[in-house]
């Protein structure tokens, strides 16, 4: 059991990294990675929401959708749960911890349209994971997301000082950089089978 969880974690974090191998959450990956502090803020917000959202969607699937044979409502119900959850988290954080809200506030609304969150919820159902596996998968996936985010933010901060050919300025060089980062992560493939 323990080794299985470790394999799930390793696979979600490195081998099948959410951003660099599965292409989930590319928009925030490219959008808010220009500075290191915003990259870290986004990663923490994703870690938080992804864990809670995976738990909520897993419970809804087990307690409502499966018993009543409502599988076709999965997409609609999951996205509504995620949207409602993000709103709730935002309100709770705002009331309870102004410091945390100041750090994460601007990232929270964007998370609803982060496909990594819905992606994890749907992948968990596809793989038919149990409770512990779901939680491990969600935490590892968001740690992998954060890892890729922080790496790219570091690269972009040094890229800002480099002289880039005119045509590549802007998004093009960021995409190529992300590609090389992804190439580096390909080195992990074969570490875990499946």
């Amino acid at each position, binding site marked *: 059991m323990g080794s299985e969880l470790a394999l799930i974690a390793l696979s979600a974090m490195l081998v099948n990294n959410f951003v*660099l191998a599965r292409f989930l959450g590319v928009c925030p990956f490219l959008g808010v990675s220009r500075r290191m502090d915003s990259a870290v803020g986004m990663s923490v917000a994703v870690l938080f929401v992804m864990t809670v959202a995976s738990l909520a969607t897993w419970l809804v699937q087990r307690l409502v959708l499966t018993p009543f044979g409502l599988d076709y409502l999965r*997409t609609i119900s999951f996205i509504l749960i995620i949207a409602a959850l993000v709103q709730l988290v935002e309100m709770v954080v705002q009331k309870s911890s102004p410091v945390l809200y100041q750090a994460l506030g601007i990232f929270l609304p964007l998370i609803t349209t982060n496909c990594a969150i819905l992606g994890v919820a749907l992948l968990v159902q596809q793989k038919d994971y149990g409770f512990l596996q779901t939680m491990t998968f969600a935490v590892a996936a968001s740690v992998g997301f954060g890892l890729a985010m922080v790496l790219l933010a570091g690269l972009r901060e040094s890229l800002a000082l480099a002289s880039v050919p005119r*045509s590549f300025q802007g*998004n093009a060089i960021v995409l190529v950089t992300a590609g090389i980062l992804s190439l580096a992560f390909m080195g992990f493939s074969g570490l875990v089978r499946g």
Partner: protein
Amino acid sequence: MQSEPTMTLSPSPLTSSGITSAASGGGVALPGAIPARPGTNWAALWADMGADFRRGIVKENPIFRQMLGLCPTLAVTTSAVNGAAMGMATLAVMVASSFSVSAVRRVIPGGVRIPAYIVIIATFVTVVDLMMNAFAHDLHKTLGLFIPLIVVNCIVLGRADAFAGRKPIPRAIADAAGSGTGFLLALLALGAVREVLGSGSLFGVRLFTESYPAFLLFVLPPGAFIMLGMMVAGGSFWANRPGRGEA
């Protein structure tokens, strides 16, 4: 990089380029609040619809200019067929949801419009998902997770909120069809290039002899990032080519 408005990678896809473009891009003949009814200037409406349609294809191409909806773009374009299928599914969802959003735009209070739009979009995504599972099962298996993920594609929600939520139905449809076609063409182009380089074929037809050393890189994930970067750079080079003035 952020000096050019159409290239803005703002952290807020719903409010950045869409609204400003919707405000500046349309014609002056038909104020957005007035729906088509008898007495409408049909010629002006028709011209606006043409402009709405064309805008999404090149000038505000979702992928190359706005960098929205990149997740499915990078993930499914391992071949031209996959890219085209994903593009068509997204186009269908966009047109249907923009039509519905525009039709009910007066009924939905501003405060809850985003959740309402998401429900509308999710409904059509479910329809497309189930239909593809029934009629194109193999394709459905290949695209897998990314069909339900059309729900969180920023372009769909972006166009619904920025354009369809404030314009009459015909223009909303034209705008969605334009952006959707731009998205489809971008996916088709990226898929075709990656398939030709990565497996030496196009639409499953072999182009080269068996001795062609396929660049495996281009069908693997890193190739998607690198190729899209190259294509964006190519577009930027073309836009800034000598003798063109400031683009």
